């Protein structure tokens, strides 16, 4: 009896610690989200939000072609960025883990992620300096003998370059931490059994690091598909991605219901990717 009351008192003390964070998360994350979900079923009638509780905003996806196109452009860019970033980051992580002397590895990593900490907005802007029609690259190309500057800025290519720059740093970090956790015994065993470097990599190292790559790739996917800044600064106004379209609804048209519906779609895409990623990881483990 006495121990039960002590337990209740203990639990009460525990709640005191947890409740503030819970309340904060519910008040400023769960409730706003529920609000947004509700608004996505409303419509905007002469600058007022009217709760009509219909699927109009979602059905617009099929009647207004630029919405569906935005989703496709988003997916296309995101997948491209994810694949290119993994392909570029993996060798770098491997070189840092295998070729760079142990005591310099940390420094090499910190150097690799240093630009990661520049302001996100500024980073996209600095790619503009490099890619614009009179920027660094075109300047160089014109000197070498190119006749006309390449149209690099304000294209999807520029968006992809800006994104890849950011995610190569991120992925190098995650893949590196995966590689150094591998016991060198695996490599030694493979070599003792007669595998050459390439075979060791392909049959032993790569499969062992695949789950880590998937986690990094998923992170890339999520951050990339939800980003507004990089496409807005580097991509120009030709091929809009979904976040750009959402911001357009908010800004010029003040159409919160449509923006909310688009956000929900964006979230569903991310959730779908998450489920696929999780299922794949489970399959891998089984």
């Amino acid at each position: 009896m006495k121990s039960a009351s002590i337990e209740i008192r203990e639990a009460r003390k525990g709640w005191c610690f947890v409740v503030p964070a819970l309340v904060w998360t519910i008040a400023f994350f769960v409730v706003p989200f529920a609000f947004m979900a509700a608004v996505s079923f409303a419509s905007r009638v002469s600058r007022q939000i009217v709760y009509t509780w219909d699927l109009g905003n979602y059905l617009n996806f099929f009647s207004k072609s630029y919405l569906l196109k935005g989703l496709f452009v988003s997916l296309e860019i995101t997948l491209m960025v994810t694949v290119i970033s993994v392909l570029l980051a993996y060798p770098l992580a491997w070189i840092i883990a295998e070729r760079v002397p142990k005591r310099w590895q940390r420094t090499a990593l910190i150097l690799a992620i240093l630009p990661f900490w520049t302001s996100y907005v500024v980073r996209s802007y600095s790619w503009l300096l490099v890619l614009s029609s009179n920027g660094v690259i075109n300047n160089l190309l014109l000197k070498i003998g190119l006749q006309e500057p390449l149209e690099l800025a304000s294209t999807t290519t520029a968006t992809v370059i800006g994104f890849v720059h950011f995610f190569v740093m991120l992925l190098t970090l995650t893949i590196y931490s995966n590689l150094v956790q591998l016991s060198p015994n695996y490599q030694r065993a493979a070599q003792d059994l007669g595998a050459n470097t390439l075979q060791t990599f392909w049959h032993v190292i790569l499969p062992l690091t695949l789950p880590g790559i998937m986690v990094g790739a998923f992170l890339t996917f999520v951050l990339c598909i939800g980003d507004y800044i990089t496409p807005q600064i580097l991509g120009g106004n030709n091929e809009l991605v979904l976040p750009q379209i959402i911001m357009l609804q908010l800004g010029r048209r003040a159409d919160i219901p449509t923006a909310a519906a688009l956000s929900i779609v964006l979230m569903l895409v991310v959730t779908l990717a998450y489920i696929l990623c999780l299922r794949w990881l489970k399959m891998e483990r089984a």
Partner: protein
Amino acid sequence: MSLRSILSGAFSWSYFVAIYVFIFLPVAVLVLFSFQDGTLPIPPFNGVTLKWYAEVFTDPKLMSALGNSLNVAFLSSLLACLLGFCAAYGLARFRLPATALQRILLTAPLTVSYLIIALGLLVLFNWAGVRLSLWTVGIGHVVINLPLCFAIIYASMGEHQKNTERAAQDLGANGIQVVLLVTAPMLMPSILAAFFLSLTFSWDEFIISFLLSRFDVTLPVEIWSLLRSGLNPKTNAIGSIVFLTSSVLLVALEIFVFRAGSGK
């Protein structure tokens, strides 16, 4: 050494250098042309001037945005750390129902893009008639940083600290004394890591600040409005300052938190 290993070594190192050039190219261009003696931050480089830095430091809008950013980052990180630490302590040290559910709830904001968090808060504040200000930005930043702080601190709460806490209790320390004098100091490396990480995230965050602020804005939002004037060495200058600040923060984190932590 065989020819093959020399070749593969040469290939590795050229790849290594190429990627680092790719990573540093935009930052190098940014910093170099912040000293441009001319009105365009693009080649040719005309010579060195500090004019643009002087312009940044005499721009009242940029300076107030800088102050706002520091305030919001500091206060929101402090609150996020405090809430995160308490929640981590409560969940790790007390037997509560549905802890798994609580952990999922507390870390859920990590899985949602900032744009969606900002939009939700915007809808809520609109409905409640809350005026947008730096406070609403700060609320948003606590929402994104709280799960991070919680996860980092919770992950470092182990069994060995529990024994020290119990020892302190047996020696007559009350609950609050245990938390403040035993648990918090033991977890200081991860608390500091969480704090500095929150600081850099909040300092750099754009979309929440953009949507949830009105008249007073944070630095990324002010830089964003500078971008409308196109390529401008002044933008390079403020960008270089931001880069320097974040780098110092990162190096401080490395030296004081991680290296100190791994040295033990």
